[in-house]
């Protein structure tokens, strides 16, 4: 691993008697992208707030770029953060906004002004530099927030649910910006999310949190194989009367299970033990080869929450209601 830029040791935060984050330990190096996954109330935001000095840990410690958590000022110089549900001054222009923050980091007015242009270009907002933020879409604001997080060329960038509320194109845009940040700036990127797909595309490393504890930790492939208890699935519908033929054809692919779901014309195809989505495509091909007209074929994205509940056999009340502080 590259030089360690972020290291947490048994980091714990309690609100009263409830532990929002409980014994979080991990390390990350420059250029790494770490995904913090977990359902609502898992403690993702709390963890990020501790690591960004917004909350004092109840116990445990961490360092950022070698600076211990007891020196929050020093840490703030080395991190960039996109907070959860951040607000923006509607009347300021994007460039003014970045210039203001540049000056708060101690840059002279001229230098701060010079920094705004390239940063906005980096997040694809160069053409809107002079527009008031009030006229921005949600995705544009999110990207502006990312530009602000980069203003001090941070060693570690934290993003709390950066794609929340964005459409698929917007999500893809943000994810590619994050990939660039890690690669070109050689920064460590820590992002929290609900979505496994996001992590699959982007992260070198996944930490799955539940009730403030790490339940799984490793590379994406490792975690996927561990969460395969809930296989990837697809839904298949065929005309009445073709159900049984389709089921047999699909089940003939090794590793694929096919079951009727209610009606005898609707099937659920699932992977049994192997996390290879390719098998679902093979099963579809087998069904078509058997001469069955397919009315619809739909992959079910494995939602983290589902996989997660399966993995941790969490009780319904474990998905803590009112997860926001």
């Amino acid at each position, binding site marked *: 691993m590259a030089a360690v830029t972020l290291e947490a040791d048994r980091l714990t935060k309690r609100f009263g008697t409830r532990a929002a984050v409980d014994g979080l330990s991990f390390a990350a190096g420059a250029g790494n992208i770490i995904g913090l996954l977990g359902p609502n109330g898992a403690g993702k935001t709390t963890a990020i*707030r501790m690591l960004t000095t917004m909350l004092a840990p109840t116990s445990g410690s961490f360092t950022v*770029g070698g600076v211990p958590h007891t020196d929050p000022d020093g840490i703030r*110089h080395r991190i960039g953060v996109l907070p959860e549900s*951040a607000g923006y001054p509607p009347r300021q222009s994007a460039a003014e906004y970045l210039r203001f923050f540049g000056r708060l980091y*101690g840059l002279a007015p001229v230098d701060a002004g010079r920094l705004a242009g390239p940063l906005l270009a980096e997040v694809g907002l160069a053409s809107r530099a002079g527009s008031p933020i009030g006229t921005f879409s949600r995705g544009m604001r999110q990207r502006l927030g990312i530009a602000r997080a980069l203003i001090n060329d*941070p060693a570690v960038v934290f993003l709390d649910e950066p794609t929340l509320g964005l459409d698929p194109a917007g999500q893809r845009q943000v994810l590619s910006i994050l990939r660039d940040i890690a690669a070109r700036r050689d920064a460590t990127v820590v992002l929290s999310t609900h979505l496994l797909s996001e992590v699959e595309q982007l992260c070198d490393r996944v930490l799955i949190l539940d009730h403030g504890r790490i339940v799984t930790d490793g590379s994406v492939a490792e975690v996927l194989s561990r969460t395969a208890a809930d296989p990837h699935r697809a839904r298949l519908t065929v005309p009445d009367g073709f159900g049984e033929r389709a089921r047999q054809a699909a089940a003939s692919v090794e590793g694929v299970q096919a079951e009727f779901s209610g009606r005898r014309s609707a099937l659920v195809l699932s992977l049994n033990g192997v996390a290879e989505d390719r098998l679902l495509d093979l099963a579809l091909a087998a069904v078509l080869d058997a001469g069955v007209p397919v009315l619809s074929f739909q992959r079910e994205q494995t939602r983290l929450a589902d996989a997660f509940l399966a993995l941790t056999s969490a009780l319904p009340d474990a998905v803590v209601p009112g997860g926001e502080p």
Partner: protein
Amino acid sequence: MMSTAATADRTARPALSRHGWLVIAGRDCRELWAGGRGPVLLVGYSVLLSCVSYLAATNQVLNFLEQREAVNLTLQVALAVGVLVALVCAADAISGERERGTLEALLLTPVSRRGVVAGKLVAALSLWLACWAVSLPYLWVLGRGVAVVAESVLLSLGIGTATALGLVEVGLLISALSDSNRASLALSVFVLIALSAPTQLPTGLANTAVGGALIRLNPVGSALHYVSAVLVRGRGASRDLSYLAAPVLTAVLAGAVLLVAAPRIVTLGAGGRR
């Protein structure tokens, strides 16, 4: 790609943004004055002063004393309302940013919490100073015949600024400690109304020992009392100085509390609840 010369250095700690408070003060003042809120408040303020001073002036049979009373009345309204406006602005400063979701980004910068507070304090005080400037033509037109213009202008600047400073500090404390912006505004307005109430005591009660102590304890009431003692009763400026203890002490004490507590109470959650 991004290692432009201007980029803050990643490893060495850049010169700590010691002027962060100035940057914040500048941005907040611009937002207040260019954003339209400040000018609109001033228009309302001037309409109020116009009404008060015109009503006072239309009383044609004013003798010398009544005219001084007119100056005094206008000055009292100018002071009390100007201070109220600054207090409300301060009450919005921290809780408002918290509610709009802009506080976290500010706190994530290396600017100290005290710097944040100082910047907001300057912006709120700018509102008071603007109110004072607006009151000048009124004081001039009412007071020029009776030789109190300079006196009333200096009184309102000195005492008004001391009172406004104290109340702005109190407003910032309330704002930092309040759960919501609405709670902060409501509490601040309540504080000011409670502080203005004893100045409305009937003069009989105001002259008793209890009334006098009550007025002296109250920063706004005693400042207003001092102003009318000097302007109307023609007492020397040094004679009733004890009335200035409350405003000055409020400014000093609230300032000290802010200075000491700012790092703990200017936080993401209200009042350092984390």
